[in-house]
């Protein structure tokens, strides 16, 4: 779960990290009132993705009127596929210097890594390319956490020895996000040293491990509904699916991430453009297939769907029956190509054919078939799509 900036800051504040005063605004008026209370503010788009500054998602407002106008422009704008649901109005800081402080999982090292650099701010990735040595790194032992002497070394390595005390305290607090919140990434960039000498989180990024969501239900309840910008991903999450939106027009369903990803590769190779990645895991029960199809069909751009299932333990005929049930329940009329493999695959293909579903002999054939069926198609009508979950759910 990727938290929005204001949410990440609330969590970091609960760990004792100083953040500037700020208020969430869902409307331009709320932004104006917030500015009235806070004085000059930065009005910041709240989206779970980087680069919002360059996309025009951050504006400085000195007066309530300016804040209202900024919020009018920002709320609802699209940033890298996320529609901005609200803004965060934060008291402007008098910046003396900007530091980079980040924690993440280094999957190659199978370890956590803490990074600190005196060259904080927007260009940190450039800094990493140009002068990697200016980013000091520490791999804390995962049971012990960072030890004082390791933090001392980190701070001096980063050339920030004059700030050793406040920085070491800050890093220890930030690292609490690992044991306390199962954080995968926790980043403060810039970490601002103000002209008064305070050390304050200027921005904050926090990603919590979805595998540990059961330990952090409070976060999910408090923030979960607001976070995902993509409506299909939100719906998929509700239905317990592993789903990522893409910008093509062919729906993809596979069981297993690798199989699903290779189906995507094949569709693209055949000249098509996938609308999503959707892994339904093992088994391929009718209910799960129905959920996956329902989410994919929510997207009006989708012209057809390809399903790639390898039956490990589940039999091919059962999978075929499940797919037909799902299609019929959704009253789906769009082209549907299914590639079935594993036990009883021949029987399964027979059942599909009898029910008007195109069976692929292998994954490559299935990919070519769905591309062929969707290329010539006229724009889809609502009728062909069947009943959409939005319509059924009264959303």
């Amino acid at each position: 779960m990727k938290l929005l900036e204001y949410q990440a800051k609330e969590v970091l504040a609960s760990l004792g990290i100083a953040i500037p005063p700020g208020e969430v605004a869902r409307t331009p008026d709320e932004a104006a009132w917030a500015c009235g209370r806070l004085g000059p503010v930065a009005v910041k788009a709240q989206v779970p993705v980087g680069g919002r500054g360059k996309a025009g998602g951050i504006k400085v407002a000195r007066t309530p009127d300016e804040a209202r106008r900024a919020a009018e422009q920002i709320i609802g704008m699209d940033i890298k596929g996320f529609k901005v649901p609200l803004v965060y109005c934060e008291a402007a800081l008098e910046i003396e210097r900007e530091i980079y402080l980040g924690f993440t999982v280094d999957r190659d090292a199978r370890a956590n890594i803490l990074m600190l650099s005196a060259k904080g701010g927007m260009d940190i990735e450039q800094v990493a390319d140009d002068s990697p040595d200016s980013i000091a790194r520490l791999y804390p032992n995962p049971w012990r956490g960072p030890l004082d002497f390791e933090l001392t070394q980190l701070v001096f390595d980063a050339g920030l020895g004059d700030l050793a005390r406040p920085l070491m305290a800050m890093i220890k607090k930030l690292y609490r996000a690992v044991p306390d919140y199962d954080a995968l990434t926790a980043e403060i960039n810039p970490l601002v040293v103000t002209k008064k000498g305070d050390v304050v989180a200027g921005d904050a990024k926090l990603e919590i491990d979805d595998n540990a969501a059961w330990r952090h239900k409070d976060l999910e309840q408090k923030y979960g509904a607001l976070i995902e910008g993509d409506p299909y991903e939100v719906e998929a999450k509700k239905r317990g699916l592993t789903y990522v939106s893409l910008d093509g027009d062919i729906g993809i369903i596979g069981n297993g991430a690798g199989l699903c990803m290779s189906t995507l590769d094949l569709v693209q190779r055949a000249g098509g453009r996938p609308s999503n990645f959707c892994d339904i895991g093992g088994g391929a029960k009718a209910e799960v297939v129905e959920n996956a199809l329902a989410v994919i069909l929510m997207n009006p751009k989708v012209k057809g769907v390809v399903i790639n299932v390898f039956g490990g333990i589940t039999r091919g005929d059962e999978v075929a029956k499940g797919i037909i049930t799902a299609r019929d329940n959704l009253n789906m009329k769009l082209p549907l190509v299914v590639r079935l493999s594993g036990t009883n695959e021949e029987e399964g293909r027979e059942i599909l054919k009898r029910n008007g579903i195109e069976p692929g002999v292998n994954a490559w054939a299935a990919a070519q078939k769905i591309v062929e069926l969707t290329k010539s198609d006229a724009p889809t009508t609502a009728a062909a799509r069947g009943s959409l979950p939005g319509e059924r759910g009264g959303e």
Partner: protein
Amino acid sequence: MSILLDSSTRVIVQGITGREGSLHTEQMKSLGTKVVGGVSPGKGGTTHLGVPVFNTVADAIKATGANASGIFVPAPFAADAIMEAAAAGITLIVCITEGIPIQEMIRVKDFLRGYPQARLLGANCPGLITPGQAKIGIIPQRITKPGSIGLVSRSGTLTYEVASALSAAGMGQSTIVGIGGDPVLGLTFRDVIEMFEKDPATTQVVLIGEIGGSDEEHAAELLARGTRLKAVAFISGRTAPEGKRMGHAGAIISGNRGTAKSKEEAFRKAGVTVAETTDEIVGMLR
């Protein structure tokens, strides 16, 4: 011959009394795997599926001489189960469980440094099978066939797909190893390739990789130093769009590594044939 597992390996199942544990214990036994016991705290002293159940792995080893374990316990208990197996002396730990929090796996990896004899496969993997001899995990026996191809893969269903294509073409496998798709896992491509290299029964290897991480690159580096094995590699996710990144931390540490392109190039440089679709693999091995 084979790697890691054969018909003499003495296997226990942690979580044997659960639904998944029961189902796959039966399948493992039906192939001939020597399942000597199971672990389920509180059920020690009972018998399940014809094998004795113990409260702890240590008890199970004492009574059965087990040296391998398959873990089928639910995610919140799986990291602990891995550490228990290692501390008790198990030398091959196969964790099938999906959804273990990454921070727990990072702690497990550090814990395992204290038990160098313990090799962990997974978590979130389909396990391994030495066709005709034994399996630990969930790879279906019927898609496999004894032979001389070593298969190592990050993806479960792609493994099945490739294995069944090989078997259908009459090309058997020495051992099939699913290393799992999690970011923090046990045995890597490189570890498994090293074992295949030492296994006289294995003459060819197939690697099925994925985007993300640098394990494929590390395996390619190893193969580049020279190998007696004929190797074919396939990378899935070649056309996957870049993930929506939040923050800079990931970019700072990974740079340009981890893409399908970087992995394929690494393999080509190492003299490894790269398949662009899984269908090509069989032909390339002939």
